[in-house]
């Protein structure tokens, strides 16, 4: 299988008072063209940090320390000069964010923000860009697209803003769309619409999607493969059906149990305890303090990633024992 994006040993740290705190550690994954890969995990697991580091969008003021390798079609993106990277953002990698109310520039019109990538990357003139912008707004099912162009973000509802964000991300037909919790900030009724929109567009445009979410219902409906992250590390990876039916990592099990209890759109709050922040991670398995199956050996070293089924890997020393529920 050829790979569109290959991430190898990605580590991201943020300098703090007591040295560099690791937010993402030793992360490996790849995405094939047209594929949907989901990353799940509780808040604080490092999902956003991992996603943002792919197109080099980590907050500069927090002076992130990034190492490893992120290759897009074989081209190394880490440490790529700003100018070159900027040319890849849009046509190669598009991105949508969690909170549409803060992701649009409040002082520019919708039209100006949609036309921006069309003009910088596709070299369209003002009129052509505007025409294309209207098409894009139609594509993401925004009503009255002509009028929207002259409106400001505060004139639009949350769902509409997220549609506009999607239109902007799709403007240059990216081959990879990174969507960081695209529905979390939206009303429940709008969530499904936006998700359906993204997966519909993915199929018709043939782009790959990296979908970050903490909603397993969303994963089930849209993803081909899943990565489960915990405390900055990948703890399990595999095809959706397998992960959701036969998880091998106790954390994944916990997530599933929580989701089933809460019903389809359940939030992952059922496992007792919280994700330890980077400066409070225990040695060995980071899940150990919350794990019902933990034994003394779990504290000795970070568990290695091992195969636990067809296409499935997990980082748990007890993964093969005791069949999951």
């Amino acid at each position, binding site marked *: 299988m050829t790979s569109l994006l290959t991430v190898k040993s990605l580590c991201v740290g943020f300098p703090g008072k007591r040295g560099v705190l690791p937010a993402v550690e030793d992360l490996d994954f790849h995405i094939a063209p047209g594929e949907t890969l989901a990353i799940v995990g509780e808040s604080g697991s490092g999902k956003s940090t991992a996603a*943002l580091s792919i*197109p080099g*969008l980590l*907050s*500069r*003021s927090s002076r992130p320390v990034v190492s490893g390798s992120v290759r897009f079609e074989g081209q190394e993106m880490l440490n790529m000069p*700003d*100018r070159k990277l*900027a*040319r*890849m*953002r*849009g*046509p190669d990698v*598009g*991105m949508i*964010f969690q*909170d549409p109310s*803060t*992701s*649009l*520039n*409040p*002082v*520019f019109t919708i039209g100006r923000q949609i036309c*921006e*990538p069309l003009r*910088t*990357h596709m070299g369209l003139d003002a009129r052509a860009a505007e025409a294309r912008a209207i098409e894009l707004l139609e594509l993401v099912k925004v009503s009255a697209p002509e009028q929207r162009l002259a409106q*400001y973000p*505060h004139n639009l509802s949350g769902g509409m803003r997220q549609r506009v*964000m999607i239109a*902007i*991300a799709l*403007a*240059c037909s990216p081959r990879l769309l990174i969507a960081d919790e695209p529905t979390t900030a939206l009303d429940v009724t709008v969530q499904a619409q936006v998700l359906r929109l993204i997966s519909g567009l993915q199929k018709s445009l043939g782009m790959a999607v990296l979908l970050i979410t903490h909603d397993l219902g969303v994963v089930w409906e849209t993803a081909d493969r899943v990565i489960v992250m915990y405390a900055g590390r990948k703890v399990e990876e595999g095809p959706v059906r397998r992960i959701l039916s036969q998880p091998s990592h106790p954390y994944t099990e916990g997530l599933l149990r929580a989701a089933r209890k809460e019903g389809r759109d359940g939030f992952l709050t059922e496992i007792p305890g919280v994700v330890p922040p980077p400066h409070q991670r225990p040695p060995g398995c980071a899940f150990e303090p919350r794990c019902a199956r933990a034994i003394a050996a779990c504290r000795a070293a970070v568990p290695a990633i091992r195969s636990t089924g067809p296409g499935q890997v997990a980082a748990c020393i007890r993964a093969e024992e005791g069949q999951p529920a």
Partner: protein
Amino acid sequence: MAFSIPPFLQFMFRRVLQIIPVVIAIAALNFLLLSLAPGDAADVISANNGGASAEEVQALRESLGLDRPMIVQFFSYMGGVLTLDLGQSYVRGMPVLDLVMSRVPATLLLMVTSLALAVLAGILLGILSSTRYGSLLDRVMSIISLLLYSTPHFWLALMMIVFFSVHLGLLPSGNIATIGGDFSFLGRVWDVFVHLILPAVTMAMFYIAVYMRLMRSSMLEVLDLDYITAARARGASEKKIAYSHAARNALLPVVTLAGVQIGHALGGSVLIETVFGWPGLGRLVYESLLERDTNTLMGILVVSSVLVIVVSLCIDLVCGLLDPRIVHK
């Protein structure tokens, strides 16, 4: 009934109405100060005229209405102010309003030039500094701005005169135009411009420092916001992000502050105009102080406060243009 006033005009109308209570308050404060002060206008006038007998002073007092009960004087003063009668300048023998208004254009020219210069330079330097956050350039600019911020501008004015007028002989050291200069129209404009350079630049220095510091911190705040990351995510260049996306948002606090500081700048113009002999309101303040022309001083206070309100109204309009959300609130 179907007739309704557009919100924009309502807003303007409300703001213009705000001038009235401020003028009343200033008039009241003026009156309070006058009644607290030792001696009255009659004493000052006679002293200015080389002294007078007690009877003459008393006669003067009666003719000025100063012998009336306080409360009567108060209402007559207030009535005058509200009908734009700011009284007579006893020293110059002309209505205070005419005297003050004749000085407004020169002050406006100086203030508008120097504040525009300061806002423009401050904003550009602030952006530059924020995009090079932590670099040597950023640090050097921070130190220079703190130094400018700590310099009394009347002294800076003197040093500028020493250097540019006395030492280099480049620029005129005072006045608004060459006395007795016989120029064509364009020549006169050029002449005023040359005279404007030193006072405007000197006055701008302090505010450049202020706006630069504010713009820098405002930019650093904005550059960390989601929509900047989002703009980067769609491939906007760093230059475009700084100078267009971020600057447009970071500008608001700077422009707002510029509005708040109009009063401060008017105060500062007293010193600058005095040093450069610039015939504006500030210079008139100084002259009136020397002549003990209290009526004129009070009149300047009224007019300059109104000026502050009018300018801040204009600034509000600019903010409305910069931020589409403001109009709709």
